[in-house]
């Protein structure tokens, strides 16, 4: 489902990722870990086509990223649900509209949008915040809204970048429960985290990055 072969990416001479090869099978829940600055976010950006690799080939959801025509990029992105590390919520839109946007972009009918948005808000326990604006929410709440937005389109692959970075232990467990639930439905999930406790008893596969290099791969 996700495959990288000898992928490198540098920003102005600084190698953010060097010679990375890894593979995540369909239906897997895998983790990328490593200290801050290790290149986790960069790896994700390559996967959702916000950055291009300098070298190597990337395959995601059955597409070789290098061969994807620019008109096809949106369609590919609809198959990838992303929990952005910096949320990327629109502060001038309500929680409802932020989540609904994913579906409006796909041309869903308003009735179905409403149904789906309420159902994902229920999953992240934020139904009562449906009419709030992002900036009136706590960091943890914003993070859960971002997660809700990433799953509302029912993607085949989920990329979650530090999805529990702002959450207390209680919420962390809740989010991991949601990810497992989604994973059980067949969605492939890749989670980046610097918090090793997160995958201590759930991980099937853990990739460890350090200074842009793949240090280890555990099953």
């Amino acid at each position, binding site marked *: 489902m996700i495959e990288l072969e000898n992928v490198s990416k540098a920003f102005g001479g600084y190698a953010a990722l060097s010679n990375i090869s890894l593979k995540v099978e369909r239906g897997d829940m895998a983790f990328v870990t490593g200290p801050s600055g290790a290149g986790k976010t960069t790896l994700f950006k390559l996967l959702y086509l916000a950055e291009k690799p300098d070298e190597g080939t990337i395959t995601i959801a059955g597409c070789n990223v290098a061969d994807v025509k620019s008109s096809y990029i949106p369609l590919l992105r609809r198959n990838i649900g992303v929990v*952005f590390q910096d949320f990327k919520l629109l502060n001038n839109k309500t929680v409802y509209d932020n989540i609904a946007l994913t579906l409006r972009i796909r041309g869903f009918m308003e009735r179905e949008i409403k149904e789906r948005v309420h159902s994902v808000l229920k999953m992240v326990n934020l139904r009562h915040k449906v009419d709030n604006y992002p900036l009136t929410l706590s960091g943890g709440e914003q993070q859960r809204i971002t997660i809700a937005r990433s799953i509302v*389109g029912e993607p085949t692959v989920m990329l979650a970048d530090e999805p529990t970075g702002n959450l207390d232990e209680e919420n962390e467990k809740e989010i991991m429960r949601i990810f497992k639930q989604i994973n059980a439905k067949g969605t492939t999930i890749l989670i980046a985290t610097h918090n090793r406790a997160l995958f201590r008893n759930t991980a099937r596969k853990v990739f460890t990055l350090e200074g842009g290099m793949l240090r280890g791969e555990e099953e």
Partner: protein
Amino acid sequence: MFSLRLALQSIFKDKWMNFLSMLSIGVMLFILVSVAIIVYNVERLTARLPERLTVMVMLKEGVAGEEIKAAQAVIKAEPAVKAVTFVSKERAMEDLKRSFKKDDFILKGFGENPLFDSFDVKIKSEGVHIDEVKRLIQKIKSMKGVDDVEYGEALMDSLYALKSGMRALGLSIGIVFVCSVTFICYTTVKILFYRHKDEIEVYKLLGATRWFVRAPFFIEGSIIGILGGMIGSGMLMGLYQYFIRRLIADIPMFAFMSIPLQFMYMLPVAGMLLGLGGSVLALGRLKY
């Protein structure tokens, strides 16, 4: 539908900037249409000119009767010609005498009749272009037996020059203002686009197509154009109601002025097309 809503929201959010754009578009379209009206009226005026024109064809001395008849027939056959009357030099003399009445002693000084045979050529009033009249005159001039052709040359030439001058002026003003209106829409949409840049980035990351991202801006550009056109129409209406009507009432000379009402409907449509054009130019090369 969602695009339309986004467009409307965006217009209201930056209402002052958008209003200023609409206002400038309105003023420009108004000036544009005023020039069009002036050109239109000059055209109308000159189009009816040949009808007032009498062309006098002076014949050479001693041209035979058959030749005169033949020439008359040829001229008559011209599509622009309504009537050709032959005026012999004797007739011309009588006319002249009649106009001098009792003072005809002046004419007695001439021994022989100094006048000449001629044709009076009347031009058709409808659908004759000035160019055609000019061509006709050139043709008659080159005919055998014709000495010279006399017509309101100076008047016609100056009107002709005025007309082509107006046309050139109208065309250049037209081009300049069409470009300006497009440019205003282009700039407005570009600014709106940059204001929403972060938002658009998120749209794209969530899988929005190029079309989905651009549609609200196209709609916005069109709406700004339409409203600008309406402002222009309003000004035109105002000009007509409060200025031209009074002008016509006070100075009959301007009675020929006419403002085709189609312009009022055309302005918003023109505004919309230019607005759309401007936004397409602004976002046409939006890349992914």
